[in-house]
């Protein structure tokens, strides 16, 4: 198992935890999607994998990368992990690069300064990487500044940098959301190519359920810091089991014949909304009184788990306490 997040709970000031008992796994060669609306905590999970935690955060649970717990390792090991095992790709490529440094500096910085490679070798490797992500004239690109490149180009540079240290795991945090649709598709094609060629594990974070189900092998749906459903992408899309997943699909417009949208009432909960029971119960069309006190826990469904009290299997399995 490449990445294994176990019972990750993270609190930082708000009335409810940012993450509650999150569990997810990423295997080698697998793309795992993480879908949620704003405030669901999806970016926090990715950052937790690199131990980039919000200030004053209280964390429990484990985040294992290659079997080692990121949350407890010493600083030197953590730096080594960040430098060579895990790479992150962020939403906005323009703010990911230092505007006053050249593309070449950005690409070689990690190789020279943290991995200790000779400068010349790092530079030729950087050029190779740029060529690998489909950029023409890499030598010239190395000398350019970020503002001289378009957003799509920059995201390619960021992907090249992510590959610089031959990582095993890539965290893509809304990596294509800031791009135009056509650029997004091309960037995704590139991501999938490099992922498949190198057998990388990838945690793909997005707010777009359609995108996740089209691009990922498995998808976790996150709501208010809780994983509400976790299934293979195709299953999730064809037959959502959690009311929130169904709601998301029901309210997303599609290209085909227009069907009436069924908006989810209310709004995504903020960190100050106290949610003692199932977090989705206030917006759930099927909610019953008991849902408001039922602490969500994963219930086995076809191909994965869903955290809903009303799933029939769950009702049967529940022990009469």
């Amino acid at each position, binding site marked *: 198992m490449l990445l294994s997040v176990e019972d990750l709970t993270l609190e930082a000031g708000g009335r409810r935890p940012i993450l509650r008992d999150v569990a997810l796994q990423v295997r080698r060669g697998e793309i795992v999607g993480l879908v949620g609306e704003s405030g669901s905590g999806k970016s926090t999970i990715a950052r937790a994998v*690199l131990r980039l935690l919000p200030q004053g955060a209280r964390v429990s649970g484990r985040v294992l990368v290659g079997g080692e717990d990121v949350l407890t390792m010493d600083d030197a090991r*953590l730096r*080594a992990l960040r430098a060579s095992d895990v790479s992150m790709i962020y939403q906005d490529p323009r703010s990911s690069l*230092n*505007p006053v440094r050249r593309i070449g500096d950005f690409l070689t*910085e*990690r190789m020279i300064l*943290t991995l200790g490679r000779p400068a010349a070798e790092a530079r030729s490797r950087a050029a190779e990487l740029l060529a690998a992500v489909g950029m023409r004239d890499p030598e010239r690109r190395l000398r350019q*500044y970020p*503002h001289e490149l378009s957003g799509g180009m920059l995201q390619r540079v960021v992907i090249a940098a992510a590959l610089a240290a031959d990582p095993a795991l890539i965290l893509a945090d809304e990596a294509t959301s800031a791009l135009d649709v056509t650029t997004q598709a091309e960037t995704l094609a590139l991501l999938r190519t490099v992922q498949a060629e190198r057998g990388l594990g990838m945690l793909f974070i997005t707010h777009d359920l359609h995108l996740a189900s089209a691009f990922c092998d498995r998808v976790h749906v996150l709501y208010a810091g809780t994983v509400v459903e976790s299934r293979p992408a195709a299953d999730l899309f064809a037959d959502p089991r959690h009311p929130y997943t169904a709601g998301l699909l029901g309210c997303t417009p599609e290209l085909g014949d227009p069907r009436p949208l069924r908006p989810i009432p209310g709004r995504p909960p903020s960190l100050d909304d106290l949610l003692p029971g199932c977090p989705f119960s206030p917006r759930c069309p099927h909610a019953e009184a008991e849902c408001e006190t039922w602490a969500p826990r994963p219930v086995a469904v076809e191909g994965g788990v869903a955290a809903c009290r009303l799933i029939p299997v769950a009702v049967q399995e529940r022990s009469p306490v």
Partner: protein
Amino acid sequence: MALRVARKLAGLVATLLATSFIIFGAAYAAPGDPVTFLAGGKENLTPEYLAAVRAQYHLDDPFSVQYGRWLWDALNGDLGRSFQYNDEVLDLLAARLPTTLGLVAYATVLFVVIGVALGVLAAVRGGRTDSTVVAGTTFATSVPPFVAATALISVFGVQLGWFPVAGGGSFTHLTLPAITLALGAVAIISRVTRQAMVEQRELDHVTVARASGLAERLIVVRHVFRGALGPVVTMCGLVSAGMLAGTVTVETVFGLSGIGSLLVGAINTHDFPVTQAVLLLMVVAYITVTTLVELAQPLIDPRARIERSRA
């Protein structure tokens, strides 16, 4: 690039012309006849004597002619004669400039080194160090130079006797004035440095660098401080440019004979040629320094290169 510099220079010349016009026009518009000052308040001034003085100083010409002549002479290095000292203004300036320049240079070194160091320290260390620096600089900006100067004189000059109280020329003579001059500047620079670094630290690309395993020390040097360099250099330039005007107070308090004290004296004795010359000199110096700083910006921030050429 060349076009940018040319345009910049044109703007510079325009600003200089405008300021020289104000400086000259102000003296011209001053109430009272300069002749009475020129004549030194003598009794029983004969009309012939007044006419002679007028002719000598070309006071009967129209304003534009007077301004044109003054400007032309100034460009040729002739700043006129002082009413008060009856010397060439240029000689007066030449004699006093070294003191002032020494003072400004001394103070600049002090405030750049100490100010940047304090700012970096506050931003990097945080906690107690930070709050101490912030509190100290808040206080330092609140003490007017003449009060600070008086305090320094009474403590280090009179009480401890470490430094000479008045007079000028030597390095030790300049120490207390330079400290006074640098005090407020240190506060400004350290604040700007701290603020810029704190802002840079919040930027995404710093997190990206951190997430790529770069050591914290390298992040501070390569990203945080490098990013903060632009505002810091700009501010250092502006402050040191403004410092020439600050010498007016400091030189007066410490009794240094530089161009600042020359200006105060000239104003109090209605010595217009000297007033005009010193003001012009200060404005020229200010504009030159600020322009240099602005031209240096693209070297620090590559984005400025295209933004400027578009503008």
